[in-house]
């Protein structure tokens, strides 16, 4: 029984993870859900550069923490939902293959907003502030999304 369980867990991990890196015709999409606060002044070190850029626009935002992260391999035309916080998701569609400069065109459907289509360089994140909030008072946090496509080129 225990042997069966171990094999089952292993299969689940490998299957769910799709242990393989993206194929030549696939793009790996990474999505981060970031909760930003005006009261909790703790900043996840991984979000330091992000926090700096956000504070240029809104200095009242002082707390930055990673809520959820996800990734998946998508082919051209594929759409995938990525979990953010609670039941909120963002839909990501690969609209155009990466060009010679490694830029990728993605269409996203964030919470409470219609689609946004943009072209972005690979291996760097595009971010947006949503109008989705959680908590009240000093616990109130705003949801930010950061999305990245990689790798920058196909394998030789």
């Amino acid at each position: 029984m225990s042997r069966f369980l171990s094999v089952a867990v292993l299969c689940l991990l490998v299957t769910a993870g799709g242990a393989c890196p993206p194929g030549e015709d696939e793009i790996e999409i990474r999505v981060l859900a970031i909760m930003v606060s005006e009261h909790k002044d703790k900043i996840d070190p991984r979000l330091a550069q992000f926090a700096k850029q956000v504070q240029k626009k809104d200095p009242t935002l002082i707390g930055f923490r990673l809520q959820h992260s996800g990734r998946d391999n998508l082919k051209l035309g594929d759409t995938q939902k990525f979990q953010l916080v609670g039941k909120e998701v963002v839909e990501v569609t690969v609209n155009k293959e990466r060009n010679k400069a490694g830029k990728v065109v993605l269409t996203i459907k964030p919470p409470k907003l219609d689609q946004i289509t943009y072209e972005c360089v690979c291996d760097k994140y595009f971010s947006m502030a949503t109008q989705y909030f959680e908590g009240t008072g000093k616990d109130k946090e705003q949801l930010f999304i950061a999305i990245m496509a990689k790798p920058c080129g196909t394998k030789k």
Partner: protein
Amino acid sequence: MNARRFDDLPPDWLAAYADGELTPTERARVEGWLAQNPDANELLDAQESLGPRNGELWDAVCPPTPSLRQWDHTFNQIAPRTVQPRRGWTGWIGSVGLVATAATLLFALPGPQPCCVDAPPDIRDLSPSTPEEEPYLMASTEDVRIISLPEAAASLLIVGEHPMGDGLLVLADRGEIAFLGVGNDLAGRFPALPDDPNAEDAPMIWAPRDE
């Protein structure tokens, strides 16, 4: 008159009475006895004269100090009898016995034993003898690819790479991003776009605020 003797009273009680060391009950008993034995008052007076309440006596008394002659005399009586301790042959037998006992214990008991920690078992002994006893196969980091991960569970990961990777969140700079189409929210409002994406360090989109 058949005067009662000390048979009726513990012999040291009269002295204790004179020194004030008795309990009230005991004192009453002594006083009753003295009333019936008035001759004993003389003895009581003598006791009290030597007791601690006679401060004049004790202040005047001091122990006699031996003279030098007395010291010499005493020392001369002691010195000839003072001898250095010598170990007799029976003492040597005792030592030999101790050495023999130690040697017996040294060779008879098993080798040095760890006091608290058991030696680790030989892994070869744990090899499965049957297919049913095969060890569990654990996936390595290369075997697992985490697709979705709530950050609250990130610290619980045993294998697998965080979906974010090891790096920092680095935003695309100016010139590295272009907005091709932006939809509105449910109220028909459009998000704020950078006035000039090429003028901002990291162009971002801010959804319209719910006022």
